[in-house]
């Protein structure tokens, strides 16, 4: 549903987005992952025709954004929950948006009900908490009953209840067959929400894969083995050219899967007490892959090393 090809955005000498090409499918939640400053928001603004790409295009259902007739009926977006006039009521905010795309006024009350803001609809939006603003932003995104939904960091600053609500909500939207594209720098959040991932760093595409593939490919898969005959097993493994690390009562084996280790142990007559594949976390995978593409390094690592050396 969303096709980005060769998308590039340059601000002066900074290349915010560099030749980015990816596609986002319908019926799934696709995560847009990257460290802060990777170009996620810029990419999303270009999708909505707010920023003009230096080169490249984004097509939504085959059309450029400005070619869409009554675009709120095709694409709903929540880029920043604070993009509301603080003295305008939530209802009035949705009313003018609805009017602009000939969406019936009754739809305003429907979406307010969906996000649970009916009771405060007449209150000024400036007095809303972050969670309420976020809900209003989602109501605005849903206004035109769009097939494509874009959310930029929707769970930022929300309490656990709010996070859970948004996560379930996005999954429901995807189940309804919509295209849901959600950006985040929170990896654990994406692991729970998204089935596909588009990962960028420093404005460049790092990976487009399913969440599982991404983690599997990135994290080095290891197997933990416990055995009363540890030295014998160790010798067998080393001779089969697996890398072995001692971990107290157990061995951590890499470069060999659990099936192979089990067969090896059986043929050598070694008793196993544990044989468990260890999967890397999304955080580890992410750090490993984007580690060298973080825009603003903290210098913390260097400081830690210096302190350690001084001791």
């Amino acid at each position, binding site marked *: 549903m969303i096709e980005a090809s060769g998308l590039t955005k340059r601000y002066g000498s900074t290349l915010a987005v560099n030749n980015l090409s990816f596609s986002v499918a319908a019926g799934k939640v696709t995560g847009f992952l990257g460290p802060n400053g990777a170009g996620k928001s810029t990419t999303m*603004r270009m999708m*909505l*025709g*707010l*920023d*003009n790409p230096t080169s490249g295009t984004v097509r939504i259902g085959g059309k450029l*954004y*400005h070619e*869409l007739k009554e*675009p*709120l009926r095709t694409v709903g*977006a929540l*880029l*920043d929950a*604070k*993009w*509301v*006039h*603080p*003295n*305008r*009521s939530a209802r*009035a*905010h949705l*009313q*003018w*948006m609805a*009017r*602009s*795309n*000939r969406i019936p006024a009754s739809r305003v009350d429907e979406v307010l009900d969906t996000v649970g803001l009916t009771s405060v609809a007449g209150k000024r939006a400036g007095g809303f908490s972050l969670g309420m603003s976020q809900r209003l932003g989602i109501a*605005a995104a849903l206004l035109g009953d769009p097939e494509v939904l874009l959310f930029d960091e929707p769970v930022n600053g929300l309490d656990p209840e709010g996070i859970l609500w948004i996560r379930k909500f996005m999954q429901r939207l995807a189940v309804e067959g919509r295209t849901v594209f959600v950006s985040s720098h929170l990896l654990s959040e994406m692991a729970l929400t998204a089935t596909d991932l588009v990962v960028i760093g420093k404005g460049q595409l790092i990976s487009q894969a399913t969440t599982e593939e991404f983690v599997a490919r990135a994290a080095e898969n290891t197997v933990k083995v416990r055995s009363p005959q540890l030295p014998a097993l160790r010798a067998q493994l080393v001779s089969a050219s697996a890398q072995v690390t001692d971990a107290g009562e157990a061995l951590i084996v890499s470069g060999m899967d659990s099936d192979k280790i089990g067969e090896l142990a059986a043929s050598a007559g070694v008793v196993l007490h544990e044989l468990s594949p260890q999967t890397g976390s999304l955080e580890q995978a992410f750090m490993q892959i984007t580690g060298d593409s973080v825009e603003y390094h903290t210098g913390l690592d260097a400081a830690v090393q210096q302190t350690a050396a001084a001791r």
Partner: protein
Amino acid sequence: MTLLAVERIKLFTTRSPWWCALIAIVLTAGFAALMASSAPAGETLSIANTQSGHQFGIAVIMVLAALSITTEYRFGTIRTTFQAVPHRGSALIAKAVVVALLSLVIGEIGAFGAWGLGYAIRPSDSLLLNSSAAWINVAGVGVVFAFAAIIAVAVGTLIRHSAGALSLLLIYVLAVENLVQLIPSIGRKIHEWMPFNVAERFLTTAGGRGPGGEASDAVLSQGGSLAYFAGVAVVLMAIAIGVAKKRDA
């Protein structure tokens, strides 16, 4: 029409336009009451005298108009607007038209209110609307307000920041046009072509006195003066739209 309705909803669902409208009317009309009640019994009040408050009214109108666009930039709703209406030119034209129409109405209420107050307080001073010049002097105020509002929307679009746009507009209207006259030799020639001076020329007939009592020195005819002022507004708005289209929102 849809876009006009959108801008109407946006304008009237915040408080500042209501306050600005009220203040503009009170200033425009109230000044007439002040002049009428303080004028010595021997002098006759002219229609132009009753309309002198519009110079303050116009400043408030420009605040209203500039804020209508700068607050959109300030609060990010301009992005929502352009997201809903990707054709930025249409969205901005709709805003300018709605703000101009509101300013027209405010101007007419203020101007006729001023005339009415003057007439009520000084019934003996022949403040009758019995010539086209008198009519234009009163009814023209709303028209000038409307084009002034378009100028302010254009400047607001270009500058995007409330403080910057307002200070530029107010300093220009209240000071710069008059100070230009102080430039040796060419100052007066330039002043003749300054848009707000030309707008005053439209309100007051040939050889007549400006609302403040001074003669407007513009050289165009009455109709030409209005066309010139309107032209300045339209050109500025066109430039603003051109810039807004190119810029990242």
